[in-house]
């Protein structure tokens, strides 16, 4: 009995505050702006597990996972100031359909772009992952993208299987993970739009998987299908993938 009580006391000491601010729940409120992320492959919807996609070099890919963490998600006003959406963090898990986020509090006004950072600033990246409420985009149990005691988050994970060609039966795996401070990237997607005080608009951001392998670095999976941050070849590959990402995100419409 004594043991149990001291155990409880210990737990109390270990426990973080239970008074964290609740996060804004991404539900459709009919107000503000909804951001919709759509996974694509060269203009078609990207379907997980059951569909395969052919690269220009004839390699055939099937995605089984694609998830990513962004920060500083914001609307850019015409005067270049930024209006943060919620606390700016979001976790997008395409396969699970976690793709649509409503920000009812987004103020009315004229905007010229939507911006976000793939990945996290260093302090947050290496901060305690357990301070976040269970439904927060940085909660490690929600995303499964925290590295545990090695510290830091995986900013993006894309996994699946591939074949050298449509006729090959030699199944291989790909696993592109990007992480660590140098690999965060900010993207700004221009488009002029106006939010009214009453009513909601939906911004559709297409995310084209095939672009990760295209320009400026044309990437063949046969030359490397894994980036997990350890080892110089893998880091070089991660660098190339990130350098290729300028064309990945396409803001299609705000309406």
């Amino acid at each position, binding site marked *: 009995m004594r043991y149990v009580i001291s*155990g*409880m006391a210990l737990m109390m000491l270990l426990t973080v505050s*239970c*008074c964290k601010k609740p996060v804004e729940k991404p539900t459709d409120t009919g107000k503000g702006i909804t951001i919709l992320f759509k996974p694509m492959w060269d203009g078609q919807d990207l379907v997980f597990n059951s569909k395969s996609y052919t690269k220009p070099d004839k390699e055939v890919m099937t995605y089984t996972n694609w998830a990513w963490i962004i920060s500083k998600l914001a609307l850019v006003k015409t005067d270049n100031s930024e209006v943060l959406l919620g606390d700016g963090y979001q976790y997008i898990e395409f396969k699970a359909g976690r793709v649509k986020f409503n920000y009812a509090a987004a103020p009315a006004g004229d905007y010229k772009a939507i911006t976000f950072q793939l990945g996290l600033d260093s302090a947050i990246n290496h901060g305690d992952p357990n301070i976040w409420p269970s439904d927060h985009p940085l909660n490690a149990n929600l995303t499964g993208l925290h590295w545990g005691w090695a510290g830091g988050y995986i900013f993006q994970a894309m996994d699946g299987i591939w074949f050298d060609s449509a006729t090959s039966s030699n199944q291989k795996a790909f696993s592109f993970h990007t992480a660590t401070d140098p690999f965060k990237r900010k993207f700004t997607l221009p488009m002029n739009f106006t939010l009214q005080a009453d009513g909601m608009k939906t911004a559709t951001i297409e995310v084209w998987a095939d672009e990760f392998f295209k320009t400026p670095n044309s990437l063949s999976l046969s030359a490397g299908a894994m980036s997990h941050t350890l080892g110089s070849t893998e880091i070089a590959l991660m660098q190339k993938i990130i350098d290729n990402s300028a064309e990945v995100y396409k803001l299609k419409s705000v309406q």
Partner: protein
Amino acid sequence: MLKKLRFQWIFAALALLPACKKDPKQPADATGYAPHYINPALLFPSIFGMPDLPKNNPLTEEGVFLGRMLFYDPVLSFDSSISCSSCHDQKHAFADPRKFSTGVFGLKTGRNAPPLMNMAYSRVFFWDARQKTLQEQALEPIQAHNEMAMTLPLLEKKLKQIARYKLWFKKAFNSEPDVFNTAKALEQFQLTMVSAGSRFNQFFPKNWDVLTPDERKGAILFNNTVDFVGGVATGADCFHCHGGQLTQQNNPNQGGISSNGLDSVLTDKGFGGISGGPLDMGTFKTPSLLNIALTAPYMHDGRFATLDEVIDHYSDHMLYNAPNLHPSIKVHAPEQIRLSPAQKAQLKAFLLSMTDTAFINDPAFGNPFR
């Protein structure tokens, strides 16, 4: 039983003390329904973070205690011979040391009974991930012909005849004994089964001193991706699927349901048998490794009797042609990791540091009828 009960009230008092938000308190009505809400922030340790708790089943002292009685009560089975604890033994972190468990009439289960701990963090249940909540999960073993072989109407009838259940269903749920609240009470009890007391759990985030030099080397192998320097492995990559303080990936899409390359020809489809998806065939819920020293035999079918066999599998016998082997392993094909005997011993030593003896001796999870 009285002694155990007293603990409940101390727990309740403690739980209510430093709550930031006032817990909803209900006035005691004439029937004695005045549940004591448990503050989750006090139950779940900060090293694990907050789990996503079921919204329809707030934890109360009374609900947890009722769940604990039900967990240990063979009355839940057809012939009153088998309780949950018959197959989920606290001494083994609530796993079954037998390869397959024995239910009523001596029938055997088709899979190994896994440990029950930190279930609040799990998003899928059973080896094949066929259930998404503990509430749904609880009614399965009760009705499974080779476990408790009960019908739900009969369960309700039996419980209603027992005075202590009439009393405690009232206290916990303001209801007569019924099936749904049986499931809720079992869920509540299992949600409180937190195991966070191993030495491994203390070494986070950088308290290396609690580990021996060998365990530390094992930790590095565990947490490094597979790579080789001069032909010698510098990492065995366990963390992708058994990462973090929970040693368990709980996001099904990030390795929480995966194949670790046990079979080239499947005898158990695992999650594929539930989803029907070709790319899910042979994938299973990725288990936690906490208390792993206590939970032998290993894997969904208990095929490995020892941790040495498990480590040999990952080190030397990975089946790269196993259907749907997880990408984080498959990318290394055809290379085996080939840990040296010394490295294997280090990895094993590290796994042995994950034992939480307080958890398996905690009277709060013990048999309340003893």
